[in-house]
């Protein structure tokens, strides 16, 4: 079927409703936030309309720079961990019988029903000294005495990967199901061992899907602000934690808005960079 490009104004009519929703619920609030980020803070009240760069200037410090850097690094690490774990897992899942697949997918969907708070406290119990998984290791004779695995970077990472993994698998699943299984067999018949065939046929054939999934998990992880607080030390807090702190506890809306705008810009830049690298590689 060939699609005609829209010509008359009426051809754009189906777009009216989504456009309206997008403007009301995204463009207007986001513009307001950009506006607020230039306002001046009023310590006695809330803020007064103004046009100052103070909020952005304050942000350009080592402290906030470090937090921003950590947030981006954490989100990137979570994205890479998720895709590295989820891709082979989903691939093996798609090779199973329909029944097995359904059971797994239902279990994964049920994980999505858990709230961030529950996930956070469940992991904090699992990582604790008194009731945690180290007790099992001691019981198995692998450790001499139980110890606490939190707070720490490992705990934050584990919690966030756990939270994002079902999304990652559900995004990868359709693409991997559609993948022609004979591609792998062809690679094997041409002399590749199965792991090698997986790496140089299945992975490159799905490169675009992998890049898209990385970006999705990255954006998802960037907004996380509960898990770093439950499972991490203050140096593991992300920018989202500081934004919440400024907006709600310090009542400094302009500064919170400035940080949020900055975070959006940085993530857009990173996503753009990923796409650019992806395109260059596919051209080569």
């Amino acid at each position, binding site marked *: 079927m060939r699609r005609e490009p829209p010509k008359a104004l009426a051809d754009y009519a189906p777009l009216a409703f989504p456009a309206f929703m997008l403007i009301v619920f995204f463009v207007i609030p986001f513009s307001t936030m950009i506006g607020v980020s230039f306002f001046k803070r009023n310590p006695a009240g809330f803020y007064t309309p103004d046009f100052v760069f103070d909020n952005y200037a304050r942000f350009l410090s080592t402290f906030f720079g470090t937090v921003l850097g950590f947030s981006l690094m954490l989100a990137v690490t979570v994205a890479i961990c998720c895709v590295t774990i989820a891709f082979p897992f989903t691939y093996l899942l798609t090779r199973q019988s329909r029944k097995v697949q359904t059971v797994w997918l239902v279990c994964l969907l049920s994980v999505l029903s858990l709230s961030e708070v529950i996930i956070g406290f469940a992991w904090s119990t699992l990582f604790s000294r008194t009731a945690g998984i180290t007790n099992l290791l001691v019981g198995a004779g692998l450790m001499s005495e139980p110890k606490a695995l939190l707070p720490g970077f490992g705990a934050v990472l584990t919690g966030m990967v756990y939270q994002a993994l079902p999304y990652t698998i559900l995004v990868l699943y359709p693409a991997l199901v559609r993948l*022609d299984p*004979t*591609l792998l*067999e*062809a*690679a*094997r*018949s*041409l*002399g*590749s*061992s*199965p792991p*090698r*065939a997986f790496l140089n*046929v299945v992975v*490159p*054939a799905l*490169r675009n899907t992998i890049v898209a999934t990385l970006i999705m998990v990255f954006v998802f992880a960037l907004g996380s602000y509960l898990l770093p607080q439950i499972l991490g030390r203050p140096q593991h807090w992300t920018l989202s934690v500081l934004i919440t702190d400024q907006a709600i506890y310090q009542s400094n809306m302009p500064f919170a808005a400035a940080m949020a705008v900055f975070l959006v810009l940085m993530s857009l830049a990173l996503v753009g960079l990923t796409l650019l690298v992806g395109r260059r590689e596919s051209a080569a």
Partner: protein
Amino acid sequence: MSGLTLQDVSKQFGSFTAVDNVQLTVPHGTFVCMLGPSGCGKTTLLRMIAGLEEPTSGAIVLDNQDITPIPTHRRNLGMVFQSLALFPHLSVGDNISYPLRIRGASRDEQKKRTDELLNLIHLPGFADRPVAKLSGGQRQRVAIARALAISPKLFLLDEPLSALDAKLREAMQVELRQLQQTLGITTIVVTHDQREAMTMADLVVVMGNGKIRQAASPIEIYRKPADAFVADFIGSTNLLEIEADGSGRAVMLGHSAPGLKLPNGMRKASVSIRPEDVHLIEPGADTITGIVTFVRDLGGTIETFVEVDGKSIVAVATPRERPNVVEGQKVGIVLPPESCVVLKQ
């Protein structure tokens, strides 16, 4: 003996027997077509030869070496899949040189061999094209070139031409046969198209229900089918019943058939006669007589359907020997005994 030998190969999926005790010897350089209806086990047998499927029992022997326990990637064979399975992220040249790259060939070697193969498949200068930009026939050739890149001992093709249109398919059949003869490589093609098998094969293996029903040259399969299944599957045929009367003489369609003999001790059997061997004559007292029910004039050949005792018999004639009959007419038919093959039922 050099060549491929299948020794009592069986494959079971649960309680279903896909391949049942297959024995076959393929001399080196033979072009084999495995032919059969879908679900007859021919693809499973090919996949076992490739190592993509493990036999439940039996052994696959190539040049006196038992290759059954060797995994696919160390069997050094070339295989073309029904879906072709060209790697979408690689160019034509990179697809063809993939098996060479895996084996650590130098860039120069890879390029030289790729160019050689592209010439062989009549696509010189296509190395840098993306696979997605090729036509169906061109993809087919690239898949063949990729499978031949390492000069394998065994060349396996799973319904390789099924995705092509009829005209291109016929051209590729001839091309594939010529390519195989130039290279002298042992080739096994799985197909359900008997014309394809007749065009290309030295040895046609007809399979049904997981068993080999007959393995012989195309013309022998056509002229001397082993049983009714083979006769019916290869080309079109008339399958008639033959019975022995009280004194042991053969009777077919209510007339005695003096030239035919039933196998020893059997009262009933089938007779296969090809439509081109059935002749139409004026009806007479002593001839088998029937009514013409339909005439299909295809230009090159004319098919006449005659009903005798509720049984439809097809006769094919060329326009030169035009039978000149019309529907509803009474005709006599002659079934020359030398063209009739008596089959066990």
